[in-house]
Each structure stands twice: as structure tokens, then as C-alpha cells.
């Protein structure tokens, strides 16, 4: 039989949803004291941060460009964490994806650009999935801890990339130079991921509208990767909560024993969740390559290519409650903090390490608020259930 829950039950839930926002504001408030300690004016600093992240069209574009790989890695992390595996291998998987994209792009320079771009993106997803799948197979069938294996696979990918870019993949023009720069050839411009500006123009044309004054984004560097990432976030949401595959991934993640007892093939779904997670990180690498960097470069190691998105994506996903749709605002927030941090450093003269500290504060406060929400909701469920069942008992008792 079903019991009726009081309305306050639902109201409380709505209030809880806003709590992370208060947590962010509180973190920034505390951060203000840190800025004061550095003899700067917190209000000026935050204004600079805001301007840097959202103040101009280009700032917004920059923020979204930075958020794209965070979001793609983040939705993959949602899958793996929900599946009970901790994928710390986003960096390596991004590199695998980037290498696949550059290899495919250089191989088919002469073919139809649209087809090649799609092939590059699919290839980068597959490469990331295979790289993640290695850790998945090791975990499922040989009981190797995936945290260790994915971290080690990061190193292997980084050094593998450095080796390839210095040997097989090196730009032929650099090969014979006296001091060769270890980088691949730049992909032809036809293979650049189309900018949003151009796409919007096409869209307006298609709809028969005049584009010139309506299109605000024509001059920015914002590429279509963010659109792909938004769409895929929705796809991952549907996958996790509306399909049998996602249901099984979540079941295995929450309780592998009960899942096995219920007839779910636990090993297969462990491998699958790491492959999907790796695939999205690989795609982040592919999009980063086609949209921003256009070539692989061995100097500066992994971080020069990934911008640490393989790790920051994990933070964004956790911040987004391991929910693909929650990861969208979370990755934009972190993108904004990264972009705005540069401006902050330039205009207010505080070290950019402060941004790292601010991000840390935000994480601590949001995690704390999350624990608080969970505690409250448990209590609320307990109260509601006991009240509702007492009510039901009375209803039954009266004839």
C-alpha cells in the first residue's frame, strides 16, 4: 500500500537544492578574507574574477571553451563513479583521444572535411574507451585496483605520446631541422572544429533570417564542442536513468553482490563503465585537439594538452552531484574560475595560486553542504515515513 507524504516533505527538498549555491557564496566570502590578507580589496578581486569570466563576449567564450573538456570528462566520471569504479585516468584517456584524432586527421587530409571531423571524434572516443577498458578488464577479471591502474596508464599515455610525437608523428618539416620542435603537423584548417559563430550564421541562413546583426558570437573562439558536450550530457542522463544498461551500471556500482545474485553480469558492466568513462575523456581530447590545439606537442607533457581537465573533470562531476545535468553548471563554474583567475592575477596582483585555494574552498563547502543535505533528507524521510504509516494505521483501525 502507498502512504501519503506531507507537503513539507517536498518543500524541504526544494530548499535543499539551492544549498550548494549558498555554499559557493559562503566559500567566496571566506575567500575574501584570504584576499584581504594579501592586501588586496576583495570586492575589486571578485569584480575582476567576474569580468574575466563573464564580463565580455570573449570572456564568456573563453569560459565555455575551458568548460567543454571539464564537462565531457565529468559526464564520463558520472558513469564510472555510478558504476562503482574510480576513474583517475582522464588525462591519459584524453591524450589517447587526442592522438587518435590527430592521426586520423593527418591520414585523411584530402577527404571530405565533415566526414573526417566525425571520424576524428569517433576515433578519439574509441581510443579513450580502449585506454579506459584496459583498466576495466584488469579490475573486473584480475582484481587490479582501478585507481592505481588508471594513474599508471596516465603515465604510459603521456610518455607514449611524447615518444610518438618525437618519432612517427613528428612534423616532416621539423624532422630535418637542426633543433626539431617535437610536434605534429598542424591539421589543415578545414578540419578545425567549426566555430559557433559560423554555425549560427548557417542556421540563420537556413531559417531564412538575416544573420548579420543577430549573431553575437561571430568573432569569438567558441567552437561547437560545447554544444556536443551539452547534448552528450543529456544523452548520458538518459543512458543512466532511462535505459537498462544504465540501470545495471548503477546497480553494479551500488551493490555488486546483490547485482550478481539478481543475474547481472557484474564483470561486463565494470568494464563497460570504465570504457564509457574513458570514451568521453577521449572525446574531450579529440575536441580539444580539433577545436583548440590542432596539433600534438610533446613539450610540457600531459598538462600542456589537457590543461588538467582529466582531473578537474572529476571535481566538476563530484560538484555536480555525479549527475550529468548537474555537471553542466559545475563545469561552467570551474571554467569560469580558471578563466577569471587569470584576469584576477593580472589586474589585482594576487598570485594565481589563490584561485586554486578558492576552488579548494568551494569544494570543501559544497561537499559539507551535501553531507548536510543527505543527513537532513534521511531524517525527513524517517519522519515522513513514521508519520505517514501512523496515519495509515489509524485509517485502517477505523472501520
Amino acid at each position: 500500500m502507498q502512504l501519503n507524504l506531507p507537503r513539507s516533505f517536498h518543500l524541504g527538498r526544494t530548499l535543499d537544492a539551492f544549498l550548494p549555491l549558498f555554499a559557493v557564496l559562503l566559500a567566496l566570502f571566506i575567500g575574501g578574507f584570504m584576499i584581504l590578507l594579501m592586501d588586496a580589496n576583495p570586492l575589486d578581486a571578485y569584480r575582476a574574477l567576474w569580468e574575466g569570466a563573464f564580463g565580455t563576449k570573449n570572456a564568456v567564450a573563453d569560459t565555455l571553451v575551458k568548460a567543454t573538456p571539464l564537462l565531457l570528462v565529468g559526464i564520463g566520471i558520472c558513469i564510472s563513479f555510478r558504476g562503482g569504479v574510480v576513474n583517475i585516468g582522464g588525462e591519459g584517456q584524453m591524450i589517447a583521444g587526442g592522438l587518435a584524432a590527430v592521426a586520423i586527421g593527418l591520414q585523411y587530409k584530402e577527404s571530405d572535411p565533415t566526414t573526417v571531423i566525425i571520424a576524428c571524434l569517433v576515433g578519439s572516443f574509441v581510443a579513450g574507451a580502449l585506454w579506459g577498458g584496459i583498466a576495466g578488464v584488469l579490475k573486473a577479471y584480475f582484481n587490479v585496483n582501478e585507481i592505481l591502474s588508471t594513474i599508471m596508464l596516465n603515465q604510459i599515455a603521456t610518455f607514449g605520446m611524447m615518444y610518438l610525437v618525437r618519432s612517427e608523428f613528428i612534423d616532416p618539416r621539423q624532422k630535418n631541422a637542426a633543433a626539431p620542435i617535437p610536434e605534429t603537423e598542424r591539421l589543415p584548417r578545414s578540419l578545425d572544429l567549426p566555430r559557433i559563430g559560423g554555425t549560427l550564421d548557417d542556421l540563420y541562413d537556413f531559417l531564412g533570417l538575416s544573420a548579420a546583426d543577430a549573431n553575437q558570437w561571430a568573432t569569438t573562439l567558441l567552437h561547437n564542442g560545447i554544444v556536443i558536450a551539452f547534448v552528450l550530457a543529456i544523452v548520458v542522463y538518459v543512458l543512466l536513468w532511462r535505459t537498462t544498461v544504465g540501470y545495471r551500471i548503477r546497480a553494479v556500482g551500488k551493490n555488486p553482490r546483490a547485482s550478481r545474485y539478481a543475474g547481472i553480469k557484474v564483470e561486463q558492466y565494470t568494464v563497460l563503465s570504465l570504457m564509457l568513462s574513458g570514451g568521453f575523456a577521449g572525446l574531450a581530447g579529440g575536441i580539444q585537439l580539433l577545436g583548440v590545439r590542432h596539433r600534438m606537442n610533446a613539450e610540457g607533457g600531459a598538462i600542456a594538452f589537457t590543461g588538467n581537465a582529466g582531473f578537474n573533470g572529476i571535481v566538476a562531476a563530484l560538484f555536480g552531484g555525479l549527475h550529468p545535468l548537474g555537471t553542466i553548471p559545475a563545469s561552467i563554474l570551474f571554467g569560469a574560475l580558471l578563466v577569471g583567475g587569470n584576469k584576477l592575477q593580472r589586474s589585482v596582483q594576487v598570485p594565481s595560486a589563490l584561485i586554486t585555494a578558492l576552488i579548494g574552498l568551494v569544494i570543501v563547502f559544497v561537499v559539507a553542504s551535501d553531507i548536510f543535505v543527505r543527513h537532513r533528507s534521511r531524517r525527513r524521510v524517517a519522519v515522513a515515513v513514521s508519520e505517514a504509516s501512523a496515519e495509515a494505521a489509524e485509517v485502517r483501525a477505523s472501520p
Partner: protein
Amino acid sequence: MAMSTADHKLLPTGHERIDHMEMRGIVKRFPGVLAVDHVDFDVRAGEVHALLGENGAGKSTLMKILYGLYHPNEGEIFLDGERVTIKSPSDAIAWGIGMIHQHFMLVPSLTVAENVALGLKSTRAPLLDLDVVSARIKELAKTYGLQVDPAMPVWQLAVGERQRVEILKALYRGAALLILDEPTAVLTPQEVDDLFVTLRQMVSDGHALIFISHKLHEVLAISQRVTVLRDGHFVGTVPTAEATKASLARMMVGREVLLTYEVRAQQAGEPRLRVEGVRAASDRGTEALRGINLEVRAGEILGLAGVSGNGQRELAEVIFGLRPATTGQVVLDGQEVTGKSPCDLNKLGMSYIPEERMTDGVIRDFTVAENLMLQEHGLRPYSYSIFMNPRAITRRCAELIRSFNIRTPTQETPIKSLSGGNIQKLVLARELAREPAVLIAAQPTRGVDIGATEYIHQRLLDQRAKGTATLLISEDLDEILALADRIAVIYEGEIVGVVDRAEAQVEALGLMMAGVHREAVAG
């Protein structure tokens, strides 16, 4: 202690008696739950006062308050008329109150004497005084008929012996009032008899005993008074002499309860499940099953009795494809299925109600609906290709919730907020909804309240009438005697005998559970 020190009040242990312990108006609230609501309870020296109630009725909470593990929100505790505050278990021990927990608090690698001495001040500190402790243990053991060797490591002791160590531990610390929390749950019938001898001895020596149980016949056998709690409320205290099983059950549940079931005689059909010469290893690599042969026929419930840890779990896991058999085979409806995966066995019509329902039966963080669909979600109409069909699922879950009487606020409620009985009904709903050919039910009513137990038993009997072959694995002999057509007894990985219910006798079954073969019992 501030109590009287008159000589006549000393116990044989040399400690002072507690003539009268009284709890008045005890209230304990947990977030959102009133666990104990103005309950009065008292116990006198020289009596066993049984505390009876379903799971969640508040018995354990009340006793944990007495033992200082919880602090009451309201109410007072009096020892011999003097008001006391018990802040911690060490306070309780100092006042002469001891508690034997359901799960023993012993260190397996230490000896009996070391376990007893643990946490006490040595008389020769900083050196150990284990010889003194051992001598004292022997003395106490003799007084109370609690035979144990103080030099034995605890891991070598049987469950009944470990319980004796727990009792000795409490007596050694001067317990005049002893709380026994479901002490018989893990014992064979013979061990229960031994325990009762000890308890009667203690009572006649002037101890006060509180006996927590939900087994009515034990309460009737050992206690002088019974107090019944229901949903945290005090229902009543009655002298045992005036109580019957039926009257106590009515007090516990608040309505009439069927204590025996009308099991319609029916001819068992073809064998649906056969287990032939199965051997298997335990988790630790020792041999857990040593050649098991069993046959369960259509429309039959075969009860598998035995003390826990004699291979029941391993047998269920081998049958359900969760543990490899080293030799032997499992045959389902004439088809060999040894080593097939749970997934395949599900499809072939086998259902399994696992012993550990919270870890193996359900996913704690999933909702009621998600847990109900754990097996069927991949079938039409609940999903088409990979896409789930929420409407069909909602309809199906509503139907299961209704027909299995699962009490839940909504389908989206996380299952961990339901009671044990409701969770078990959910597992039952999921496993029986597919009309299985063979059902393995491991401890289907352990930790479940009487009302839900009655319901679950009825469903198992209904399934029997529909022709399902049921293997009922239970440590509760009463449950097996009430339901099973035939009873097999397992001991150390072997079936020591199979008897028809009509000729089954509790004493004989008890001996078999202790490892005596059927022929020897009969002879």
C-alpha cells in the same frame, strides 16, 4: 557501591545482589522515531523476566538504556529503591548489571581466561595474573555448571561454549542483574536446554535475569513474568503461568496470529531439483560440502535444518551458481545446470532468497521500484531494446506492492528506510512473481516480525500448492517443523539424515544437528 552490604544479600560470586531494579516512564526518541514511549519495567532477584516483542518494538533500545549504551530522554532507573544514572556500560558494570549481546564480544585468537581478563585491572599490574583469573573462572564454572577450559583459545570453541564464556565474563565482573539479548538464536535445542539449566541455577542463587526473545515457547519455559512491547509502547506484564502462546502472540501483534498453518496434504510430484554428490570449498579453502545428496520434488518443501555454519550457505550458493562445485552435479527439471550463472538459472526458473537480505538481496540505495525490477527490467514490456518503459514498470511495481502487502510511502522511497519485514516481503515479491520451478529460501524470516513471518510462511505454502519445489534453509527448527514436508539435517557439510515431518521429533533432530547420524538416533 552504595547499596546495603548485609551478608544475606551476597551472591555465590561474592558480589551483592540487586533485589529490585525498576525503570519508570522511560522515553527514547531517535530522529523521527519514538523508539520507547513511557515504558515501565522491573525485575527482582530470583526471577527471569522475559521481554517480548517484534523487531523494532523497542526491547533492545530499552535494554541498551539500562546498560548505559543509550541515554533516555525521559524516565528514571532505580536500583533497590535508589535512583541511579547509568552513563556508560562501565557504570552499568559497576552497578552490577551485565549484558550478553546477541553477537558475542570475544577476541577469537585469545584464550578464555584472556578474554575474561580483557579490560580488567590485573591484581599484579603491570604483570598479568591469568593464573588467578583461571582459578576464579574454574570456581565460577563449577558453581554455575558452565564448563569451559580457561586455557582454550576462543576460536576453537563451539557457539554454545562461547556463550558460556560471555556469561562467565559478566559473572566475573560481578553481574547481579544479567540482560540476555536473544541468547538462544544461535544454539541447538540441546544447547538451549543446557543454557536453561544454567539460568535456573543463577536465578535460584539470587540473580535477576532479563531474557529478550521472540520465541514464545522459550519464554514460556524459562520466565516467571513476561512484559510485552509493541511499537515502543508498553502492552502489559503478565505472570508466565497465566500466559499461553496464543495470548502472548496476540499481545505482540495486536491481533490473532496463526501459530500453526493448515498444511494441506498433497502428493509431491516429479523431482524438480536434484543435488548429487556435491562437494565444494568454503571461502577459506576448507571443504564446506562433503558429498551432498538431496532431492526436492514439485509441490514439496524440503526443510534443511542445522546449526549455522555447517555448509548451508555454501550449498545454496552452489545450487544458485555463485560458488563452483568441486565435484557432483545440480539437476534442475532433468537438465544439468551445475556451474551455470545466476542469470541463466533465473531464466530456467530458479529463484533464490538469499540469507543476507541487506547485502545480497537488495540494493540499499535503490528505490523500492528499482529493487523490485532487479531481475525483470530487461524483459518486455518493462523495456524495449535498451530503453526502459517507466509506465509498465510503475504498473508492475504497484501490483507487486499491493499483492505482497509491502508497506512503503512511495515506489520511489529508498529501500533502506523500510523495515526488515517489508524488505523481505519485497525480495519475496520479486522472487515469487516469476512463479519459479525451484525456490531456494535461506532464512526467509530471520529478523522479521511475527506479522510478516506469518505472511511469508503463507506465501511459501501457496507456492507449494502451485507446484514449486522449495528448499527451505533455516536455523529455526520451529519454522521448519511448521512448513516442511520432509526435513534434512546438515552437519559439517554432510546430510546426516532426512525424515518425514510426521515422524520428526525435536530431540532426535537436535541430536542430528549436533552431528549424530540418523541411524544412531533411531538405534
